[in-house]
């Protein structure tokens, strides 16, 4: 939204220098390092990154959903409305979950209990989190379903998850996440399992919700197309770190990190279809494979795949720093691009 406002008001969600370590059979593993991001009220943000880059881990850390036997420790700060989630305790945390922040699950197919009617599941959450009666909750649930652009809310309410198509199920999950009127919805790859046509509808729905209820949305995706369509600001993740963040325009049209640049170049160029004069350009290709967190070197994590890396990159650990001349919010984690070129 408004870039300046961030400076003055308290942010809705503010993650600062979050690092998360988990236990694995081969020892402890830092899956998130130095992750910082903020979401303001009513804002739509996005996190992009390839598989395994730590997107889901970020969300699970924010909501503290990592199972005890997996989590080793968190460090850093996670503030919601000024309250530090890492210190408020499990009971308060439970109120935040679903109350202030709710999740749209990555996989709507498996995130609904197959044994209960979907309506009952929405109502269950309402009854648990608010003081409403059953009939009130049902009414509200039907209302929500209608808002989701569902024609026959009553029928959907009475359906079992498996009776619904992927798109409908995703809508139900979104309705569920709205059940307690949260301030922030975090959606983990809400559309990657859907048909492209349905994906578009769901994205539009998010936008509608954002406008209508003023709910802030943090969307997780690996698709820059989605980011471009919906987000106001975006953070790009690679190997557990945010490598670049800024407004969507800044990041997409003026990417500073070689990784972001490469990713964007990987998107096929369709000019040849519209422009007779150009032929198909070969796709840009990042060399190598996504990084395995188990084998980290001391320098930049992207160094082995980077097309501009030099010796310095191997040695110095880059920090996330503001891109100087351009934007106030545009930051990048690259020694070569600090302060821009």
């Amino acid at each position: 939204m408004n870039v300046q406002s961030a400076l003055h008001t308290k942010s809705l969600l503010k993650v600062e220098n979050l690092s998360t370590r988990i236990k694995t059979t081969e020892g402890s593993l830092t899956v998130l390092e130095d992750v910082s991001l903020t979401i303001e009220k009513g804002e739509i943000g996005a996190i992009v990154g390839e598989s395994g880059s730590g997107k889901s881990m970020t969300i699970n850390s924010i909501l503290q959903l990592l199972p005890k036997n997996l989590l080793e420790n968190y460090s850093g700060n996670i503030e919601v409305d000024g309250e530090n989630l890492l210190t408020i305790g499990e009971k308060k945390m439970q109120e935040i979950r679903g109350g202030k922040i709710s999740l749209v699950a990555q996989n709507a197919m498996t995130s609904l209990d197959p044994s209960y009617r979907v309506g009952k599941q929405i109502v269950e959450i309402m009854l648990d989190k608010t003081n409403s009666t059953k009939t009130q909750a049902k009414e509200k649930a039907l209302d929500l379903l209608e808002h989701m652009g569902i024609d026959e809310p009553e029928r959907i309410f009475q359906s079992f998850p498996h009776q619904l198509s992927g798109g409908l199920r995703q809508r139900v999950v979104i309705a569920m996440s709205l059940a307690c009127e949260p301030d922030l919805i975090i959606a983990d790859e809400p559309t990657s399992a859907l048909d492209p046509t349905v994906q578009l509808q769901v994205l539009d729905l998010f936008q509608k919700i954002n406008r209508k209820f003023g709910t802030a949305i943090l969307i997780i995706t690996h698709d820059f197309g989605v980011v471009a369509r919906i987000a106001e600001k975006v953070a790009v993740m690679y190997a557990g770190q945010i490598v670049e963040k800024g407004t969507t325009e800044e990041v997409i049209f003026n990417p500073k990190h070689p990784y972001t640049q490469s990713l964007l170049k990987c998107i096929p160029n369709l000019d040849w279809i519209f422009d007779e004069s150009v032929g198909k350009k070969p796709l840009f290709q990042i060399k190598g494979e996504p990084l395995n967190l188990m084998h980290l070197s001391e320098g930049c994590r992207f160094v082995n795949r980077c097309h501009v890396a030099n010796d310095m990159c191997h040695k110095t650990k880059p920090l996330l720093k503001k891109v100087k001349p351009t934007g106030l919010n545009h930051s990048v984690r690259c020694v070569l691009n600090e302060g821009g070129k």
Partner: protein
Amino acid sequence: MFRYILSRILSTIPVLFGVTIVVFLLIRLIPGDPAKSILGGDATSEAVDVLRIEMGLNEPVYVQYGTWISQLLKGDLGFSYTLHTPIIQELSPRFFNSMILTIASLLICVTLGVILGLISALKKGSVFDKVSMGVALIGASMPVFWIALMLMWLFAIKTQIFPVSGMYNMRNPGGFMDLLHHLILPAFATATVSLAVIARLTRSTVIDILRKDYVNYFHSFGLSRSKINLVHVMRNSLPPIINISGLQVGYIIGGALFSEVVFNWPGIGQALYVAVTSNDYPTIQAGILLIAITFVVVNLVVDLLNVYLSPKLQDSIKAE
């Protein structure tokens, strides 16, 4: 739905048909002459011949099968070689007694097994989990007759808390409480192995479901773990637990044979034991058939129950 139930019921017919063939063939395969077995070793060969004709043993096999089936359908299970009585008279009261034992064992192993498995799953990796699963594995590795003997030794001989045998105290039968008193040891002996199996399965099922996305998803809404466990985990563990419990009925009926013998429980298993030791083939045949039919019916009920419990299955059936 009705059509499905009907078709499911009908689909047991070929199985039952196969079961009768297997059971019929069993007795065909015995070496020796059934007529002679009936009359005993010192009967005249004339008497044996008469009986052979009477029993239709000179007919071709398929005719014999036909006769046998048509008698079965009339409720005639045949005639015992050694007891010289119509088998139905021998087995029907015993069947009832066996059901008492089976149901009691089932109740024990399902309730205890589920509780044990559930706690173990929720406290996965804890001492309780390790101990109870270790014990469960041991429980599943013991012969039922041995468990029965050991229980008997401990609770009926050493401590005399429970009676050793029978269903009632003959001197002064004390109704239901008396029955219960007599029931506990054989029921536990029969239930042990299944208890272990159910506990293990419940544990792995619950662990599986605890890992499901929807369980974690509900947690992300701040619902308490205990509530999720109660509402979602339990509900979704139900079908596999019912499934395994249904299958355990077979094991329990098999195990009941041993505890019935050890505890002198007047059930069908005891009759089978006597029949086996005296080579009373028609009774073996009838007993096995009766149990198989019961088992088929139990499986049918379990299937239908599972359909009832699984909305997805119901729908795929409706779609047919």
